[in-house]
């Protein structure tokens, strides 16, 4: 069995000087060779691992046969954002994990191939609008992140008149403000959005549902069903002393400034950012990696990633932590901040940390870290980024009557992703999703549920 073909990437010393993409994508030859490794299982397990049920052997077969146009059709049948998924999905925990070839050797590079087909299409094909017959039924999608875009895409394909409401000034949610360009280039995202626009989806920016308009207003405007994909909102902080010192940022703030507001190009762009010399990033997820690698690209002399467990327990994708290390991020594991120390003007100058050790597994299955007494030590820093996760955005649920949330603030939904209010559905981080593809899976499922809900409504009101 031939080995998996590696993804070509730019050398670390070159790529850390800009924000361009790290991996460069398969050449045609590489893609065809990788696709030829797929044994085209009769009962493909990989599809079961895909939250949006792409016909994986189907699209791979067309690549092996150099029929890329057919390949992208298969992908877009189920996935409205294949160029995004080919880049940011954790395939190693999903489709590729299920791949039979992985049992004895290496799984097929499904993500790499998905990216190849999408990039090929974006380069070589004009936007081909599928034939859609409008049913003139208006539906609203709140939030233009991965969940909302997927839901909107599927509903538009089914003939609904979809309007997406976004509170920020640009479309894409976390795909735009959160994931850095070196992982997901803006033009790739823009192409995916162009495709969705070609389906007839309308986008309304600068509209925070709950404040600018209420869900009730949307109903009055004739929207017959609403999907809420408002995502994760409030960043989590540690609640330790000194956390509000200057130059301590949430990862959301740090990344929003750089990605959405283009602060790396300050003062050409108006949003400032402090670039940092000795940067400390707290956390071990993909967002922590993104923050650390962004700090390197902004010119930091040293970037430490501080994590309370060991590298094995890090929630980040192996590929991301590998890239981070290649780029010079130093991992300081089994370490937890207990206090931030500031100078006389209120700027952070150091973090007091404790060493940790791992004990028995907790409810997440990961071994629980406990602090080692009297192990305190100090790490000097002038910029801290806290990448500790996010709580669901409370604005819409708290301002919409009947929309119940659980004790964590997640919107309560039934098996069909319908909330406690008939006609209002929800998915993605706002109901407890975790990854881009999970959010997309929920967006897809919600679209289906919304269709069956709308079909059950009496004609005059539907």
């Amino acid at each position, binding site marked *: 069995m031939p080995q998996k073909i590696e993804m070509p990437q730019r050398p670390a010393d070159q790529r850390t000087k800009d924000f361009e993409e790290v991996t460069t994508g398969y050449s045609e030859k590489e893609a065809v060779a990788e696709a030829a490794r797929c044994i085209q299982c009769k009962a493909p397990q990989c599809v079961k691992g895909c939250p949006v049920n792409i016909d994986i052997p189907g699209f791979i077969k067309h690549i092996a046969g150099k029929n890329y146009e057919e390949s992208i059709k298969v992908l877009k049948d189920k996935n409205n954002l294949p160029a995004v998924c080919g880049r940011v999905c954790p395939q190693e925990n999903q489709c590729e994990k299920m791949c039979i070839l992985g049992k004895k050797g290496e799984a097929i590079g499904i993500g790499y191939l998905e990216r190849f087909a999408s990039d090929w299409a974006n380069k070589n094909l004009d936007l081909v609008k599928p034939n859609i017959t409008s049913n003139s039924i208006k539906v609203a999608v709140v939030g233009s992140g991965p969940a909302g875009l997927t839901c909107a895409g599927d509903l538009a394909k089914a003939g609904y008149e979809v309007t997406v409401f976004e509170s920020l000034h640009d479309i894409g949610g976390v795909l735009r403000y959160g994931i850095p360009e070196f992982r997901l280039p803006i033009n790739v995202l823009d192409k995916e959005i162009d495709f969705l626009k070609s389906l007839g989806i309308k986008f309304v920016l600068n509209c925070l549902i709950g*404040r600018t308009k209420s869900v009730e207003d949307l109903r009055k405007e004739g929207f017959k069903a609403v999907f809420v994909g408002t995502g994760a909102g409030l*960043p989590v902080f540690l*609640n330790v002393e000194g956390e509000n010192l200057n130059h301590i940022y949430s990862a959301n703030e740090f990344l929003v400034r750089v990605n959405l*507001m283009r602060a790396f190009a300050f*003062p050409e762009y*108006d949003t*400032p950012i*402090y670039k940092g010399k000795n940067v400390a990033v707290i956390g071990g997820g993909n967002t922590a990696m993104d923050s650390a690698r962004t700090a390197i690209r902004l010119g930091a002399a040293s970037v430490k990633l501080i994590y309370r467990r060991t590298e094995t327990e890090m929630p980040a994708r192996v590929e991301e932590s590998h890239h981070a290390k290649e780029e010079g991020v130093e991992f300081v594991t089994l370490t937890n901040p207990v206090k931030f120390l500031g100078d006389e*003007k209120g700027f952070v100058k150091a973090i007091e940390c404790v060493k940790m050790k791992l004990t028995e597994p907790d409810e997440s299955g990961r071994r629980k870290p406990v602090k080692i007494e009297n192990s305190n030590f100090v790490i000097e820093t002038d910029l801290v980024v806290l990448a500790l996760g996010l709580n669901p955005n409370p*604005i819409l649920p708290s301002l919409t009557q009947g929309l119940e949330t659980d004790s964590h603030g997640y919107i309560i939904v039934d098996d069909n992703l319908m909330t406690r209010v008939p006609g209002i559905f929800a998915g993605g981080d706002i109901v407890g999703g975790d990854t881009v593809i999970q959010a997309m899976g929920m967006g897809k499922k919600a679209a289906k549920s919304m269709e069956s809900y709308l079909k059950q409504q009496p004609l005059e009101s539907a």
Partner: protein
Amino acid sequence: MFKIISKEVMAHNVKSYVISAPDIAKNAKAGQFVMVRIDDKGERVPLTIAGTDIEKGSIRIIFQEAGKTTKHLGRLGEGDFIKDILGPLGIPTEIKKYGTVAAIAGGVGTAEVLPVINYLRAEGNKIITIIGARNKDLILLENEIKQNSDELIITTDDGSKGVKGFVTTALEDLIKKGVKIDMVYAIGPVPMMRSVSKLTKEYSIPAFVSLNPIMVDGTGMCGACRVTVDGRTRFACVEGPEFDAHKVDWDELISRLALFKELEKLSDDKFTKERNECFEDNPECKCHRK
């Protein structure tokens, strides 16, 4: 895109815009703000909503030119467009019957206090408004404030109008005269709000302040606006912008507001320089319209 319907120069460097924004106008309440981004390269800045006209579908903002963004905004004219305005944001002022309310405002806060006193007065409160300015030329909206207050006291630093001194001088006079004040509401420069907080605490009068920390998204996503209130970190954009004045960590707020001081100056200098060059090269340049 949001069209500027009318522009008014209120005082030196202080401008008032009426902007077409029907959805915001319809839903805005006293004490709320908008996030404004002028163009594709602009930053997002919070500005308090100083009034709305539901019929005309417009909102009013009043701002003082202080840094690059407000100076840039100030160069726009009637008929020009602002790229992005998001709102209304923040929790509205709690409008209820307190009794006698002393509304205290300084700087552009004078414009921002107007919707608050309107609502509070409509609810049956007696409104004593105290407005402060450095001198008589910087007093904003005197007539409108007067019409919407039961009593108006003006203070100027130099004594060119009204009481010589600060707003707190006038407030303390009232208290000492035995006027029973049930609630104090303050909006304006941080040192002013801080002094009001200190004074009202001494006399055990409940006081609310409208805070103006740095914000980026304005919807609770980034935490730039975090302030410590009663020992707890709060996000001013979604949990504020109004808080119990006596519980605000003022030192922290002041320090956090100065976070980007150097970079802000750089941006401001660059803007001023470019605009000056632009003027020499191109007298037709739109950015120099009044």
